[in-house]
């Protein structure tokens, strides 16, 4: 059941906050999709529709009846429904696949295809690293295996023998072992392994939050008080999100380090990791867009930066209340103060025609996706 009401700006839980959707129609920018699992009914929380304070909550049918949406957004929604998207990881995948078809322009298509390919490679790398970790358990030095060339018949034979040995030691059926490793690598690829040569996507995003908050605080020094407050709040939420995600990632890393124990008591550990990775994806959902907008603002004038801080305040992915035992009452009261001060100019969405210059800016942001 979709909760009908959001308490102020802060949602009660993830379902109530919804998943950020990378639409290109200006009025739907970063709309959040809330979904009722039982009835599969979708509704969208639109922060940038009226330009005023507050949100509009609309089902897709009403959106189509009242707003001219781009072809990209129509196809994206169709795919969201078709794929039963119910979390940010699936949403990202569907978004990239639609963009890769070229519906958000040629540049976004090229970028989306690059991302899909590189994520596939990264998952393969993660599988490989996990296998190496297993080989250590069988006392087979990976260097020796690599030196012989992993594709040679001899090496393959030794590899199989070693994995069989590990399976016996862990008391896991040999066929299951590889299936589990595959499933695990698919699950943790968005974060990556702690000893991977490059961090995974969500880990990078979490690190970017610190840079984001540092930049925004740097800008707010010379800004008028009301804007400085908004900026300070945005930086504060970025820091808070980073703290929570860093903790969650540490939990995942502890699990993957103790690989043997994990493969042994598979169900329990796997579910735990799945829960943590999903938490991470939810926590960081919506930040990639915001970070990209603020990175662009770095090269702009002070006045434009003020506008960026004020205009994107409504898109700030504030963690929901059930994740916020850490947030203090004082922070909540700050929020109500800044909310009162936040006034946005109305956007020209009423003409009914699509502003393709703005659509192109949104498509450009897709072309910079990471």
């Amino acid at each position, binding site marked *: 059941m979709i909760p009908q009401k959001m308490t102020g700006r802060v949602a009660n839980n993830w379902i109530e906050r919804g998943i950020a959707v990378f639409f290109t129609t200006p009025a739907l920018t970063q709309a959040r999709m809330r979904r009722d699992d039982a009835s599969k009914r979708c509704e969208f929380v639109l922060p940038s529709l009226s330009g005023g304070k507050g949100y509009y909550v609309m089902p*897709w*049918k009403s959106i*189509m009846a009242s707003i*001219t*949406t*781009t*072809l990209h957004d*129509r*196809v994206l*929604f*169709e795919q969201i429904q078709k794929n039963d998207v119910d979390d940010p990881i699936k949403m990202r995948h569907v978004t990239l696949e639609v963009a890769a*078809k*070229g*519906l958000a*322009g*040629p*540049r976004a*298509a*090229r970028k989306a295809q690059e991302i899909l390919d590189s994520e596939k490679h990264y998952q393969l790398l993660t599988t490989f690293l996990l296998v190496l970790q297993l080989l250590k358990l069988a006392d087979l030095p990976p260097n020796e295996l690599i030196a012989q060339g992993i594709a040679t018949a001899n090496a393959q034979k030794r590899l199989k023998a070693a994995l069989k040995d590990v399976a016996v030691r862990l008391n896991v059926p040999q066929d299951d072992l590889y299936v589990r490793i595959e499933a695990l690598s698919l699950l943790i690829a968005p974060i990556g392994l702690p000893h991977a040569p490059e961090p995974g996507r969500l880990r990078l995003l979490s690190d970017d939050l610190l840079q984001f908050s540092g930049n925004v605080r740097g800008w707010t020094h010379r800004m008028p008080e009301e804007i400085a407050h908004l900026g300070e709040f945005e930086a504060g939420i970025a820091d808070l999100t980073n703290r929570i995600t860093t903790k969650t990632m540490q939990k995942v890393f502890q699990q993957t380090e103790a690989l043997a124990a994990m493969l042994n008591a598979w169900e329990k550990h796997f579910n735990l990791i799945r829960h943590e990775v999903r938490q991470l994806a939810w926590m960081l959902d919506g930040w990639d867009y915001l970070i990209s907008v603020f990175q662009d603002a770095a090269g702009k004038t002070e006045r434009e930066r003020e506008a960026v801080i004020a205009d994107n305040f409504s898109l700030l992915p504030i963690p929901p209340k059930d994740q916020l035992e850490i947030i203090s009452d004082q922070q909540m009261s700050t929020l109500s103060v800044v909310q009162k001060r936040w006034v946005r100019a109305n956007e020209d969405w009423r003409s009914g025609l*699509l502003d*393709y210059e703005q659509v192109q800016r949104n498509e450009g942001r897709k072309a910079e996706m990471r």
Partner: protein
Amino acid sequence: MSSLDDWRNVATASLGLPDKRLLDVVKLVEQAPDRGRVCEVLDRIRPRLVRLRPPRALTVQRLLFRPVEDLFDPVERYRAKIGRLSRQIVQPCWTIIRALVAPPLLRRTDERLRTIDILDPNEVFATGLPLWQTAAEQLSTFLATDAGIGRCQVGTEQVTITEDVRQQLLNIAEILALATEVETVKLHLSERPIGSLSQVDIDLLSTIISRLAADSTRKVQTFVLVLLARMARPGDLLQVLADMALPCSSAEHAGLFKAVGSNALAALTYEAQDLRQQRNKVTDPISGAETAEHLVTRLMSFERTLGGLRDRTVTEQIHSARRDIGTFVLDTVVAKANQELFQTLAPPQGPATRTGPAEPTVEQVEKAEKCALSLRRCARVTEAIGLRREMEQRLAIICAELERQAHPAGAEADEPLQSRQMIRSARLIELLAGPDEAQRMLTAQLPGRNPAP
């Protein structure tokens, strides 16, 4: 490098350079002593410089012409007797003023320009004010006493003065005499083109206009004409002038309004006429559509404000400008955009690659989409000037061709290629006719595909 041909070669060669290199060339050319030739080069690359907006070094000469710069027209577009200035006037005017103004003032101004921050308008204003005032006085005295028609000796140099040159010099002298007012207003109002006037802007303009009107209505006319050239919708400023209470008779007020309005409208009419005649010179449909859009915005604002005069000449001027803009858009910009769009997307000649038939690159697709966007802009322009049906017919033909091309020859077996081609066409149709039409095409071309809700 001395011959005119050499300079022209520089201009032509520079046009092929990337932006950064072009700006380097401009910097070098500007240091050359031969101003006439420098102008020749700059005139040729000016359309690109307008887009690049390079920070230009401020010389004494450029500072002198700052209050009048909004009235300059390119030599080929200049028309006399409507209060505009030809770029050709710069050289003789500068020769005269350099001979008339005391050298210490020119030297002092030059020295100050080297020390101040030229991006700070207040400092530039303070530096320019003594120069503008002295130049205005000297130029008026010169025109009143020494200057006859024909060749004229100024200091050690000779200048040819025709009726028109004399009139332009008079205009410059009048504007320079109002430099304080003109530059003060520029400091307070937004950058050119000024989109809209706030109440604070209107109050400031009213105060200045009232003060000038107490002196003479001629000063008001000069002042307003300069500002009209800075407005995106000049009619707004004319309306301010019409609504004000001026310290003169109502007949004088009406005469002033009509004189300023018809001068500014005449300038626009000539601009539109030139645009129509330029048909073969338009190389870029995007800037062509942009120019037409700005012109129509200005024309519409004139129509709103001057329409009430019920003056036959004004009505004719408005109609002729509409006709010229319409012809320019339909026959030049739309034709050019259409041609470029299909040329860009045409399958490259030559053998197919190992991975299948050759496809347009990302850059080519983007270029085609820009052409489609400029056609969309043209549709806005034609709607405003009553040529909606003509434009719709042209767009329908383009969309039909795009729909036909959605199925490339020889791609039946290659499903991904076919799908990419279809989406490329669908996006272009979306830009031209809207997402509903694009969705209809996509649904029709993919049998069995569920239409999006």
